[in-house]
Each structure stands twice: as C-alpha cells, then as structure tokens.
C-alpha cells in the first residue's frame, strides 16, 4: 500500500505562495517523478509530504488517512536527501539502524535487518566506517539503506543523484529502479534533470512556480505537451518556438510564412507555434502534401558525435534549430541557403494567455 493524495495543498513562506493549490493523486507502487526548474517548489512539496514543513492549507493523505497534522515519524515515510544527511558521528551500521532504534526494536533484530539491507546494497564491508570515510556513491547507498530498512509505505527522494558524477549517476539510477521493482513501494522522486525523469518515471509531474503544469507518462509529456512551459522545458535541444497569429482560413501567420493547419482557434488569436528540432528535415524535392517548405540559411553547425545541431536563420530573422544525423551532415553547409520542411502534424500550437 502507499497511495498519496494531495488536496488543494498550499504553502507560503511569509507572504509568498510557494505551493499554490496543488492537487495530485499518486497511485500505489507508482514511481512518480516531480520535475521542474530549480525553485519551483519540488522540495517544498516533498517536505510537506514528509511532515518537515507544515501546510498553510489543504490536506495530505496516505492510504486514505489524513496525515496533514502528523509528525514525520507517524507518517510511515522515508526520505533520501540531496546531500544524503547521514549522521556524521555514527557508523554505517548505526546510520542504517537508527530508524529502527527509534522504534525501540531489539538490538539483535536491528542487526539482522541492517545486515540484510547492507547485503542488498553491497555495504557489508563498510558497516563499521564513518560517513566521511566513504565515497559519494557509497554515502548514497547508505542513505538509501537507511530508507529501505524501515520498509515504509512511501519513499521520498530529493534530487539524490545530483551530487554524483555522471557514470555513478547512471549506475545509481538503475539501482534505484531495480530496488523499486523489488520492493514495490510508492516512490516520489524529485529531480530537475529531465533525462533522469524520462528514464525512471512511471509518471512525471511537471511543476512550475508552485503549480502543476502537466501530469503524464514520459511519452505523453514529450509528445503531447499541454502547455508552452512543458513543451519548452522538455527536450534537448529545446523546442523551436515562433510567435504567430491565426489569420483567415485557419492559417497560421508566422515569421517564416503562412502555414495551413486544422485548428479550432479564433481569428486574430495570438499563438506560439513549436516544433521539435528533430522534426525539421531537409525538404524532399518530391514535395509531399502537408509539408511546408521554408528557405533558411545555415548559420552554425555543432558536431556532437552521432548527431549534429544545426542552427539556421530565416530572412525574417527567425532562428531555428535542427538535429541532424551524422550521415546527413554533408548536406548542410555553413553560409548556404537550404530548403527545410516543417510537417504540419509536428507543429504544437499554444494559445497565448493574456495577462
């Protein structure tokens, strides 16, 4: 079990609202990732759920039981902190066993459980060391061990991988996913790294400025971004955006010309039109329907091994970025004009909200 429910959650520090009416249901056994730019309130959300911060209004329930006012220890959750938060004066063994000691479990049983977890995480030979004698990856494992030894209903991770170097990060990522599959406990994982989110999540929650922008599977988030913010935040290099307006005959009036699409938007509505870099292709001489051909000049080419990032500029000044496979790169030449095609069905249209 481990179903979490946020209802109308609000949190303010002083007069600034950090979390501004958050509603979210997290399913049992789910691996949910909170993703968003730094400062958007991810940690605060997690700390509210942990009980480390008190809510300003709204309720939090775990398995249908209202925990809003409960102390952290009564919520049956465990948390892994960004800097691991190991107890510096305790050995690895004492660190892992501390939560059990707090529950007044017998030393013998504690030892048994700690050994079991240490075994699972490959920490057995380190049990008598202090945290400052461990590498970053080992400290990370201890922090995870400390969480799983208590077998809580819900695991909370606050950017646990951001202090590790790239290789170790991949390794720990896989390990956390494996643990999740084996233990089956609900896991809420905070990160600002979209790649990490895509790779790990059952569902991703995109947050911005204390609000949820979109909830969905990684595929949904990538291919059907619901808001301009999500579209721009997900994807690397990020989506190309063009400012535009709906003109007559449901045509998009864009800097690069008019494009015909099916839209229900009204005449004169201001919009942003987005297209992912990998959807910008060289125009096929045998023109297909639904393709919009645009002449642009190649202004920059960055080679990135298997792929290259090509920047181009339209005569209107509109800049576009495209991702090109290595074997295609010969067709692009710096400073020359080329024709590219933008498939209508690859365009994402976001109405501008007046403010």
């Amino acid at each position, binding site marked *: 079990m481990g179903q979490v429910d946020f209802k109308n959650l609000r949190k303010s520090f002083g007069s600034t609202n950090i979390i501004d009416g958050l509603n979210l249901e997290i399913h049992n056994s789910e691996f949910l990732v909170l993703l968003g730019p730094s400062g958007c309130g991810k940690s605060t959300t997690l700390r509210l759920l*942990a*009980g*480390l911060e008190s809510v300003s209004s709204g309720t939090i329930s775990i398995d249908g039981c209202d925990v809003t006012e409960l*102390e*952290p*220890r009564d919520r049956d*959750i*465990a*948390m892994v*902190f960004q*800097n691991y*938060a*190991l*107890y*510096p*004066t*305790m*050995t690895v063994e*004492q660190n892992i066993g*501390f*939560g059990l*000691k*707090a*529950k007044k479990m017998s030393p013998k049983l504690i030892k048994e459980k700690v050994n079991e977890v240490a075994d699972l995480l490959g920490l057995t030979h380190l049990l*008598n060391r202090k945290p400052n004698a461990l590498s970053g990856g080992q400290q990370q494992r201890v922090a995870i061990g*400390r969480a799983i030894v*208590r077998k809580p209903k819900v695991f909370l991770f606050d950017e646990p991988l951001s202090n590790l170097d790239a290789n170790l990060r991949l390794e720990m990522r896989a390990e956390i996913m494996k643990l999740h599959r084996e233990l089956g406990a609900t896991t809420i994982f905070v990160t600002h790294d979209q790649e990490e989110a895509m790779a790990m999540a059952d569902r991703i929650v995109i947050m911005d400025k204390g609000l949820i922008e979109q909830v969905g599977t990684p595929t949904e988030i990538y291919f059907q971004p619901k808001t301009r913010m999500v579209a721009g935040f997900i994807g690397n290099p990020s989506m190309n955006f063009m400012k535009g307006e709906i003109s007559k005959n449901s045509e998009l009036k864009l800097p690069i010309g008019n494009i015909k699409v099916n839209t229900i938007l009204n005449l004169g509505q201001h919009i942003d039109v987005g297209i992912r870099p990998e959807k910008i292709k060289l125009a096929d001489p045998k023109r297909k329907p639904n393709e919009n051909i645009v002449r642009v000049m190649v202004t920059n080419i960055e080679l990135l091994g298997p792929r290259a990032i090509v920047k181009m500029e339209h005569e209107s000044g509109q800049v576009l970025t495209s991702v090109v496979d290595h074997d295609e790169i010969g067709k692009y030449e710096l400073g020359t004009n080329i024709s590219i095609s933008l498939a209508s069905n690859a365009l994402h249209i976001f109405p501008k909200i007046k403010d």
Partner: protein
Amino acid sequence: MHIKYKLILPLVFLLSGIMLYPFIFSLWLSLQDYRLTRINDVQFVGFENFGFIATDQSFLNAMGNTISFVASAVIIELIFGLSLALLIQKLLIFRGFVRSILLAPMFITPIAVGLMFRFLLNSEIGIIPFYLLRFGVSLDWFGPELALFSIVLIDVWQWTPFMLLMFLAGLEALPKTPFEAARVDGAGRWLTFSSITLPMLRPVIVVALIIRALDAFKVFEYVFAITRGGPGNSTETIMYYIYQTGFRFFRMGEAAAASILLIIFILVFVILIVYLSRPKVIK
C-alpha cells in the same frame, strides 16, 4: 631573510622579552632561596623549594581547593551553558536580545563581580540572606562549609555565558539535514539529542571545557575580593597561595616552584582531557 620571518620578528622579540625570559627567570628562581626581604643574599638550593612545596600542607590544601573549584564550576557551567544554548536556539522571538543579556556577565571585571556578590550574599547587609531569612532559610554563604561553594556559584554566574557563547555558535554551525533525517527516521527529542546533537557538538564541548578549565585554574579575584582564602584556608586557591607566598611572605623561590608545579599539573590535565575525549575508534 624570507618575508615570513620578517613578519613574525616583532612578535618574537616582544614575546621573548616579556614571556620567554620571565619564564626562564622563573625556572631559575625556583632553584634559589630568594626572599624579597634578603634580596642580596640569594642562594642556590637546587630542588629544595620543590621538596618544601610538595610537602607543604597549605599548598596541597590550595591544590585540592582549586581542583574541587575547577571541577564543580566547569561542570555546572557546562550543563547550564548547554541547556540554555539549546533553549535559546528554540526561541522564536527575541533570540538576539536574550543572548545579549545572558552573555553580559562574562565581560565585566571579575573583581567587580566578586565584590557585588560579597555584598549581595553578606549575612548582615546582603539582600539575598535578608530575604532568605524571611522564608526561614539561614545560610552563612561565606562560612566554613559554604564559602568554596559560594565562590563556585559566583564563577558560574560570570562564566556560564562563555559556555553559552561557544555552544550557541556550535549549534548554529551544525548541519541541519541530519536533524531532518532524524525526524523522518522517527527519533524523539531525547534520542536526537543524545545520539546526534551531543556527538556532533563534541569538538566544541572539548574546546570550551579546556579553555574554561584553564581559566578557572587562575581563579584569584573572587577569593581576593571576598574571603582572602578563609575561613581558615577553606577557599585558598593555588593562585592565592602563590600570591601569598610571593608577595605577603616574600618567599619568591618557593612561589616560583609552586607556579611551575601548577604549569605541570595544567599540562597533564590538558593532555588527559584531549586523550579522554578523542572519538572512539571502532574496530
């Protein structure tokens, strides 16, 4: 000459003149029969002074008084200082204000503190005995039984603030996240204190303990202001003993020997504390 030696030169000169030379002079002095009353008749006597001091009942008594004084004062100050620091850290308002008030005693001249309490606790004109008497409590604060304890209390009044200062800074500097982890781990207040706060604070506690103890060994002003070592010699401390021997009985050689024994004792004490308080190594 490298610039680093030029930079320390003034200090080296100064300290050689005012500390190293007197220190060596003191060592020499301790081997002489040197009396202020017979300043032209100084005789080398070897370790005779040490022999005399080491068997002198007054010296042993002064040493005993000093050790009782230091141990009780420092331990009480440690407990009060730590408790107050923990409380003040939890203060939601007026924190800076409260801290400023509570730190005040450590800055004022000890002779003033001694004299204030001499009168506050005086059995005829003191306010405290006067009002205690109304509750039927009659204590002779500077009588034979209580005098040393009263001096401990005065030291506690003046120097608990020092412990408070150290511990407030120590607590402030502790990382916050282990405490959050402990809350999530379900640790109660006592378990958090005993297994997280206290061990993490240990280096600060050791330093505060050593500084305060070394300072307490020098206790002189309260004794001078209040009891002059009495009643009997129940409050004679080592500093007061040296002061008496050297400047009232004019026996400089013996006073020097006593001060050297004091230094050796302090050295042993510091080494012992450092040794005892080292983190335990787990095999």
